[in-house]
């Protein structure tokens, strides 16, 4: 029972991180991003492939975040030129394009089969204890990121992002250029999603292209949307947490049924 709860908890926390990143983009800045799952997938595969080469796990997570962030730059630049509904279409298309590419390039990613035999975090501690340790680490990480986003929202940078979400024209009239901030928040969210994807890697049975189907992560988008529109950073965090739990439960049910 404890093991089961732990497994649900880990998945829920992974969703939490994803929703927190989205909360910055959609909740605060009102940038619609349906492509978050693409950055998540890129992160997962980056860290998984590096881990198979024997690179230390911490470095794998960092690389996952960095690569996802770099990949977000062109999409972020695109976001400057498009109204939100068009950005929604483009990011949705982007996530599908990434998914198809991952499925097709089987020389690198083993296609739909996923990457088997990935090393697990804390594996030397025995299976039950290592799951608990992963859970505890993730919990600390989520708490840290949640605290970070709340601090960020209260900082001058966060207030600027909020102003972009509220009224871009007014912000420009005050002499601030929203463009570069939009790109920054896009990349920041992608780094979070990428690093988060890197953390998904220890759950290796989750690790194949089906697990990054956009549909699963729309649950997260929903959560961040609900919370974020209220604008309160803490509220966003709580919604992200609740959403993570429900998303995790759904995914576990599907895992139990043998279909992800």
């Amino acid at each position, binding site marked *: 029972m404890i093991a089961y709860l732990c497994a649900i908890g880990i998945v829920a926390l992974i969703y939490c991180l994803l929703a927190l990143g989205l909360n910055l983009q959609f909740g605060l800045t009102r940038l619609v991003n349906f492509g978050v799952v693409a950055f998540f997938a890129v992160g997962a595969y980056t860290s998984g492939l590096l881990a198979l080469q024997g690179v230390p796990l911490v470095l794998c997570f960092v690389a996952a975040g960095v690569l996802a962030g770099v990949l977000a730059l062109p999409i972020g630049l695109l976001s400057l*030129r498009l109204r939100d509904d*068009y950005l929604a279409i483009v990011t949705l298309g982007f996530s599908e394009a990434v998914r198809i590419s991952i499925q097709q390039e089987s020389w690198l990613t083993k296609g739909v089969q996923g990457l088997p035999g990935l090393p697990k975090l804390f594996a030397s501690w025995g299976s039950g204890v290592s799951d608990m340790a992963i859970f505890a680490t993730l919990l600390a990480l989520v708490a840290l990121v949640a605290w970070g986003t709340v601090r960020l929202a209260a900082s001058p940078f966060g207030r600027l992002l909020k102003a972009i979400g509220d009224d871009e024209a007014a912000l420009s009239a005050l002499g601030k250029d929203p463009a570069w901030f939009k790109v920054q928040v896009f990349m920041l969210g992608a780094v979070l999603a990428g690093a988060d994807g890197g953390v998904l890697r220890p759950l290796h049975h989750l690790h194949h292209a089906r697990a990054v189907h956009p549909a699963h992560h729309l649950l997260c988008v929903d959560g961040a949307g609900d919370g974020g529109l209220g604008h309160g950073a803490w509220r966003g965090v709580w919604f992200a947490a609740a959403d993570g739990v429900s998303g995790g439960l759904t995914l576990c049910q599907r895992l139990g049924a043998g279909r992800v």
Partner: protein
Amino acid sequence: MTWIDFLNLLINGLIEGLVVALPALVMTLVMGVNRFPNAATGDMMTTGAYAAVAVQLLGGWPLWAAALGSMVVTAMVSAGSYQLIFRKLAGRPMVASMLAAIGLGFLLRSLISFFAGHDQRTFDLPLVRAWNFGGIRVLPTDLAIAAVAAVSLMVVFVLIYRTSFGRQLRAVSDSADLARASGIRAGGLMLSLWLLVGALSSLGGVLLGMKAVVSPEMGWESLIPAFAAMVLGGIGSPVGAVLGALLLCVAQELAVPLMGPSYKLVLSFVVLALVLLVRPAGIMGRVQLVR
């Protein structure tokens, strides 16, 4: 690539384009009138295809009758979804409607795979040999698909440009306030639009299923090409959607020898992004809708 290969790909692209034109037209109509990208269109197509399969399997109807039955069923589902969901979200930000549409698509897809399973299905079609004109091969089935798609497109265009329903629709699309001020009732009009949109999606799904196979993911996978076709043609322009679909599918087919069939969808995305960057108005749209 010889010119015969080229012609074969071109013909295939045009036939596919006529099929993709149906969902692209659906999306451009909804985008023009209700102002949100209807991401449930793909799954409406899947619903239509599965409804036709079910009718054919259980009732033993011929395919044309099954397709008609499925159009009626899907039109009801579509109008119901408008009444229950999109009507209520009309005053909200666009993202709310789009999220709801994606959620609706997810729901439809899950219901279909719950009841019908993940296996691929096919329509009960007579096996026919392709006609061969000195290397240029044409399947009679494909010709029938293209003909049905072309005729239904024409019917829709007559509806839009030659009837009172179409005039009202275009008036609402141009300016909802002005239309209301001149006495156009939105309620019944919207219901008819969503009935039409459902029937068109269903037909698109059946034709797509005839061309390939029927599977729960078929509609979702044709969503991005339909989006791209809509944007390429210019959002809100019905003629543009059809032109965009034809152009996009011909380009996709011609690119197959270069990058393989699986990357068609990625090409759609590239076209989508490029058009939005370089010429957001598309072939015949209005730019103020984009930025």
